[in-house]
């Protein structure tokens, strides 16, 4: 059947990329726009509802959707034949679309590395999933919070670059 050709397969990976990306950035924005600002207003006896139940569950979907977004995105770029050119930010072939998507890809890769190598290891200390002293916990909370804010900042140009590559170049 012609409907299910190679373009359809690329599109399926793009669809999975968007689904994963919505979950990832949606949860990132949930942490930054909803959960973190609300914690200061929650009574101490109710905080464990967030730290013991909601946050660990949200972090599970957060980190795995981040990984899934990167993998499906790289598959789409590879199948479309522009992965190298995009990672070179279009400087090797001068194609604007590759420069735009490449800018978004680098931001996405930095953000995913932030999730897996900074936010998650530090959140494990904060949430008591690994042993840590009170001092270590406080430091880990600050590091994780700043990395999460950094990702919120980067999500704005990342989405501009990715969506513009699809629509205006």
């Amino acid at each position, binding site marked *: 059947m012609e409907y299910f050709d190679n373009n359809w397969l690329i599109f399926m990976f793009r669809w999975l990329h968007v689904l994963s990306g919505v979950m990832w950035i949606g949860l990132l924005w949930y942490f930054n726009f909803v959960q973190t600002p609300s914690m200061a207003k929650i009574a101490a006896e109710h905080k464990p509802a967030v730290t013991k139940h909601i946050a660990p569950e949200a972090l599970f979907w957060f980190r795995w959707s981040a990984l899934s977004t990167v993998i499906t995105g790289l598959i789409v770029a590879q199948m479309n034949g522009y992965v190298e050119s995009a990672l070179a930010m279009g400087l090797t072939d001068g194609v*604007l679309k590759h420069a735009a998507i490449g800018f978004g890809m680098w931001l996405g890769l930095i953000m995913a590395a932030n999730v897996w190598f900074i936010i998650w290891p530090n959140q494990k200390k904060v949430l008591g999933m690994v042993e840590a002293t009170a001092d270590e916990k406080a430091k880990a909370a600050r590091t994780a919070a*700043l990395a999460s804010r950094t990702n*919120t*900042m*980067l999500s704005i140009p990342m989405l501009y670059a990715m969506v*513009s590559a699809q629509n205006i170049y």
Partner: protein
Amino acid sequence: MKNPLDSLTGTIIAGLVITALHIFYMINMSGG
């Protein structure tokens, strides 16, 4: 000095500044 990332407004403004830099890069790459 207060970190701009400590406020949501500062975070969004910083994100918009990087977006503007990206647009500037794209304008230059397209030859204006």
